[in-house]
């Protein structure tokens, strides 16, 4: 503890964080599409982020993996162009399109040069509105998705994550892998993909942000062109699900030298009044950097692992409080015991004033550093919109962090942090552990 005191005195007069100084303009197109814009004309390209809420949670019953496969196929041919023609056209313009399917959103990340923005956006428009879903492209991408599923079947981290989600969320989409299973993906038809396209890419659920060399008028014109022909509505969003896993330990026997350990319990909604105290508390327990309690106890003091972290994980339809680490099989029992001790210590004793101040200084200082680069800023801005935040959140967020008190954390810790509700999933040949089920 002595060194914490030293560190604090060393930097007492150096704790004013940089300000995130970006000017966000909220725009709305004639067609009614809203977006957030940051004009940054020093580099001649723009980063555009689109999100369609719902993501792979909108897979129809029995069609697990359809939205993932559909999303991967958006860049595999559109309009008059087959897959190769589409790629060649994209590469000729040096445009970058990334299409990804997440649990809560289908995400499209775009970088295009100013010099050929109109042509590049026309390609993107066709990919969104008129994807071809050609049979040979379906088969080729399907086989790649199946290879990924096979690879994850023997990957300890993927195995741990899959089992944890099954236990926590059962039949809800969150309870299974969004890539689907070998059987479900094998059975998907072209009609399933067309249906998935209509379910996800609705005008009623799209969020957009742009950062870079583009004006408000150019952006609003672009939004109408890009999105105006999408279906007005998509499929109804999936139902909420409560996290329902009891405390305990689940073993997945797998012959590998290092055990992968995933642990978690129920979490907190993003808009819960206690979210900020809980967020700062999670930072002290297992946040990024090297000085969290878990890093100190598990890595620095005992050399049990290369990395350990814990974090709040709010999703659109549920929430968790999760952590992960890995250790050689022989020391798995010791590692789980240390984590359990830290869970109990936090629940019973909360955190110290010093720890709180350190965490606040770190979090408030690190926040503006996130805003470095057009792509990263666009990503943050679209995420804020999906979280129903307003642009002024960027200016007030650090005040909310600084308003958290030791007493707030004590109260939240005693209500939320629950050793009896903490469940471990361990993949490997761990020693010193017994399954509870």
């Amino acid at each position: 503890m002595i060194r914490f005191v030293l560190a604090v005195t060393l930097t007492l007069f150096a704790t004013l964080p940089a300000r995130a100084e970006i000017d966000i303009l909220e725009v709305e197109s004639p067609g009614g599409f809203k977006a957030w814009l940051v004009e940054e004309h020093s580099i001649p390209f723009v980063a555009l982020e689109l999100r369609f809420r719902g993501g792979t949670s909108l897979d129809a019953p029995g069609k697990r993996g359809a939205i993932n496969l559909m999303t991967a196929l958006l860049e595999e041919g559109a309009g008059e162009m087959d897959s190769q023609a589409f790629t060649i056209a994209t590469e000729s313009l040096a445009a970058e399109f990334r299409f990804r399917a997440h649990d809560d959103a289908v995400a499209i990340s775009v970088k295009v040069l100013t010099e050929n923005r109109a042509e590049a956006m026309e390609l993107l428009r066709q990919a969104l509105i008129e994807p071809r879903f050609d049979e040979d492209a379906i088969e080729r991408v399907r086989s790649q998705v199946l290879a990924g599923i096979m690879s994850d079947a023997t990957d300890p981290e993927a195995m741990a994550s899959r089992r944890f989600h099954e236990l926590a969320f059962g039949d809800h989409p969150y309870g299974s892998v969004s890539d689907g299973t070998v059987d479900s993906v094998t059975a998907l038809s072209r009609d399933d993909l067309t249906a998935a396209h209509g379910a996800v890419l609705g005008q009623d659920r799209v969020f957009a942000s742009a950062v870079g060399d583009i004006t408000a008028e150019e952006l609003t014109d672009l939004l109408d062109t890009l999105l105006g022909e999408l279906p007005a509505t998509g499929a109804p969003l999936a139902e909420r699900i409560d996290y329902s896993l009891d405390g305990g330990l689940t073993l997945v026997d797998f012959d590998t030298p290092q055990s992968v350990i995933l642990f978690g319990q129920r979490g907190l909604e993003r808009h819960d009044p206690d979210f900020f105290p809980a967020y700062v508390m999670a930072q002290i327990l297992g946040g990024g950097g090297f000085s969290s309690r878990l890093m100190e106890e598990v890595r620095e003091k005992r050399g049990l692992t290369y990395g350990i972290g814990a974090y709040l994980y709010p999703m659109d339809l549920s929430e968790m409080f999760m952590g992960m680490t890995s250790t050689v099989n022989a020391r798995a029992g010791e590692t789980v015991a240390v984590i359990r001790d830290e869970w109990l210590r936090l629940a019973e004793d909360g955190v110290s004033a010093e720890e709180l101040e350190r965490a606040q200084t770190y979090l408030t200082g690190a926040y503006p550093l996130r805003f470095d680069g057009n792509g990263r800023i666009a990503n943050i801005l679209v995420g804020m919109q999906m979280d129903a935040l307003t642009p002024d959140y960027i200016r007030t967020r650090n005040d909310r962090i600084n308003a958290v008190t030791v007493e707030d954390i004590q109260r939240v810790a005693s209500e939320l942090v629950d050793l009896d509700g903490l469940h471990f999933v361990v993949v490997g040949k761990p020693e010193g552990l017994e399954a509870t089920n």
Partner: protein
Amino acid sequence: MHRAIAPTLLLACGLALPTVTTAEEVTSFTLDNGMDVVVIEDHRAPVAVNMVWYRVGAADEPAGKSGIAHFLEHLMFKGTESLEPGEFSSTVELNGGSDNAFTSQDYTGYFQRVAADRLGLMMEMEADRMTGLQLTDAEVLPERDVILEERNQRVENSAGALFGEQMRAAQYFNHPYGIPIIGWKHEMEGLGREDALDFYSEYYAPNNAILIVAGDVEPEEIRTLAEAHYGAIPANPDLPDRVRPQEPPQRAERRLSFADPRVGNPYVKRTYLAPERNSGAQQEAAALVYLAELLGGSSASSLMGQMLEFDEKSALYTTAFYDGLSLDATTFTLLVMPVEGRTLAEGEADMDRAIARFLEEGVDEATFERLKMQLRANEIYRKDSLQGLARSYGEALTSGLTVEDVQAWPEVLQKVTPEDVEAAAARLFDRANAVTGYLEKEELAMLTETAQ
């Protein structure tokens, strides 16, 4: 993850560097004690990256001490006379910054991302640990467990990583690039305090270091800060020359196969010994950048992708990559993952047919022109990442290149002709220089937890 090993295989086209005409604002100078300084200005946000790179990496380790360069990198956070163990990182965090470090075969780097007005403090601490490291076994021994767990996580738990390690060992007969950066496990287990301090005192000195500062800074301000903090550290007059054992002529093709029950999708990989970028002579490497893209860049437009994934449907996945940033001879890699039901021998034959076809038919001009355009565009996109820019200079300057080489590289790339690529391919594809490896799935009688 923290304190990481730098990726040794980066896609070459991501490494395109600035043209003189469109270059970012870069200033470089050298302190009296021999420490090089590079300042990259970007005034978009009040943020800066402070990096110190040492011209020493895993390939400079003494025999039998594999992993010591990377182990020392971890131990650099364990304190000096004025900083307690862990205090370096906690001070960075208390200033709202983040810090980390990385080790490759050719370099070891340390960096902090902070608000630009904290640079002085970062330099003060970085200078302090350049020569003032203090270590006790109480710190060293648990950290050795940490790096062993890092090896477990990165390598022992991954069949593909174990396979890659065997491939590299077979590629280099004599050069230490054949030894993994993280170290062989049995040697890591024997590393100790003295090994780390010996390596440290030999290589950590201002005349073996490069300071790179990128962000909302002015070169003169950095010169003043650098002179104040690093300028007082004396040069090490006994710094050894950077000479590693070189490869003899390689005269026999090497082949290996590795089977593991954890393999999800078998594949065949081949590496060829390849020339690296050299100061004032980057043309051959530039041609190989194009060659990797033409053979195995994007699936829909590269030769292997079109032929094997699209037309013949014999491969699930194909790729080729080449990284020219290396002090000594590097590798050019090809990979084919056959579709189910097709053997690795057939996959290898497919790869060889693609190479033969390329040598016979030559460069596809339209694809070549698109690549040129993309490399030019990379010059624009890459300016968006401060950290990426800073890293590209650090990697180059620790790999025997100069700031001028870095700035000439985009033009070197633009001047490559299809004939250059064909000639480079003809020189490259010599099986006597190659290692071919099969990663196979070892079938077990029963596997708990298989695919759902």
